[in-house]
């Protein structure tokens, strides 16, 4: 019978998860080591915690029971502990799952990365950072503003000066 850990979100919802799922978070792993099985997470809402648990469940399953030769090679290549943080994720099926997982609006992504950073789930933090970075790449300033709902707080003169100052980066091969 798998050992269960209880996580309590900021808004009071309780979630029981298997130990190996919860241990995707380094912070939780350390806390439980001090013999505490109920972990309050006041800064994480239940909505975000559900998503984080979903990620951890998927990644715990893959790390413990490699389903494909490529993922088992990745697991073998990394440390001998059952929780591996091999980067980058080499299993194409898992990568595909991750890509689906991050098909969320920016606001949700930011909430997740803040929670994952707090819980020290390295792979999830990196996944979200990459996703957000991809949403910036290739866009001009105005498009970036639109994507992230950012207000333009420059005067026209400042904007023009900035465009000139940074134009060197757009001269290409």
């Amino acid at each position: 019978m798998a050992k269960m850990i209880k996580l309590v979100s900021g808004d009071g919802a309780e979630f029981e998860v298997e130990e190996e799922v919860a241990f995707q978070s380094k912070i939780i792993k350390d806390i439980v080591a001090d013999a505490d099985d109920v972990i309050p997470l006041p800064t994480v809402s239940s909505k975000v915690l559900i998503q984080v648990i979903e990620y951890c469940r998927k990644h715990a399953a893959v790390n413990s029971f490699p389903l494909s030769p490529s993922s088992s090679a990745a697991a073998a290549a990394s440390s001998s502990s059952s929780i591996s943080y091999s980067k980058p994720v080499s299993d194409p099926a898992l990568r595909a799952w991750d890509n689906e997982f991050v098909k969320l609006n920016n606001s949700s992504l930011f909430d997740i990365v803040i929670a994952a950073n707090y819980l020290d789930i390295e792979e999830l933090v990196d996944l979200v950072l990459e996703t957000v970075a991809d949403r910036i790449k290739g866009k001009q300033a105005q498009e970036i503003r639109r994507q992230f709902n950012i207000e333009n707080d420059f005067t026209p003169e400042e904007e023009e000066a900035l465009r000139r100052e940074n134009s060197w980066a757009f001269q290409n091969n």
Partner: protein
Amino acid sequence: MAAGLESLGGFVLESILFKLDAKHAAAAACVSTRLRSAASDDALWRHFCARDFALYDRPLDPDGALCPSFKGAYKSWFGSFSMYPLSLVKRAKECWTSIRCWLSDNCPEISDTLRKGVSEAEIQQAEKILGVKLPAPTKVLYRLCDGQETFTTNAAKNKYLADLGIIGGYEFYEHLVNVHLLPLRMVVSQTKNLTKEVSMLTMPKYIVVAASFYMAKFFCLNCSSGQLYVGTSNLLENGEMMPCVPGELVRLKADANFDMPQDALLLWLEEHNRRLRSSMIKTRHPSSRSICLFPETSPYCSVAVTNGVQVRASAVFVPEASDANGGEESYYFSYSIRMSLLPEGCMLDGVYYSSCQLHSRHWIIRSKDTIVSNVHGEAVIGQYPLLLPGEEEFVYQSCTPVPGVPGSVEGSFTFVPGRLSRPEGRQFDVKVAPFILEKPEYIF
């Protein structure tokens, strides 16, 4: 409460920016005050400088001048090199930096001969004169370093500088070689000279990039294929050359599997750098001015100790004396023997002797497992070295051609304890462990 991009903690926003290319960060700087501040953080540009140009520690521009910030340094490098894939620029820079550092530490005289890189305009000029398009990796290498300043108008000075090739060389009997990397102006002049003499090379695609000036030894880059060749003994007669780098590694175009081109000059310099750093080759001894190409490490260099006498032996392939149709002389090798007496001295039949002297030699040379030579003779290069305990090695070179490779050389020396004029005991044989003669994958 929902978070926005601008209200993300500094670390998170910074981490996102770290993942961008410089041009994306520049675009982000134009978005809002908050993003401008985050994207102008010099720590970000320090990261870009390291990631894209292998520029660490100090914000230097391509000429080595200090910039006021890493952003300024990045801008300078980008402006200078953005016509090339940045990954190629970084790789070529790392190669040169590594070589320069090794030279600085081990042969500062040689590192002083390295010239500053040429400009893009100078490269285009050279291409125009020669009627060739240089491969991108070679262009980048020359943008970063224009070969060596070892060719002056003063003959006496040239003689002095001739030992300072960055590739190095070897010497046996009258055959003396030391390979230099040519500056672009000499690439042009030597290419013109060589293609005039050798009609085989007049198809406008070979350029001479490296050469030795004692004994003529020329390295030519094929600009169409990207492979590097070295002239054999038939070079001037019929343009005969041998490839210097494994052909399967040479690619001039990026493709689905590999994102950057790598021509033979880049691969050749990288391999040379690896050999210097692994001490496979080095200067003969700390005070020596030139780089010696006889391997010093196993498995290429054999070692054997007999009765306190240590013999190290290794060979180097001599392409400029080799001959594709040479029959017996097809593959020419030079070998270097280093002998010394261990500090304990010479132990023979339970007695200790404080010196020993060589009387004769015996060599067995094999070519593809067939013995092609089995000789006995007195002395080595006409000398009878006297070995004293713990002294510097006695070193000499000789040579042998073989009809086919791989081959091997092994043998023994006959020594007497004491000295030949006053032997103190019986003669004994000192083993020379076998060392290999093979056509190397990389020819220098």
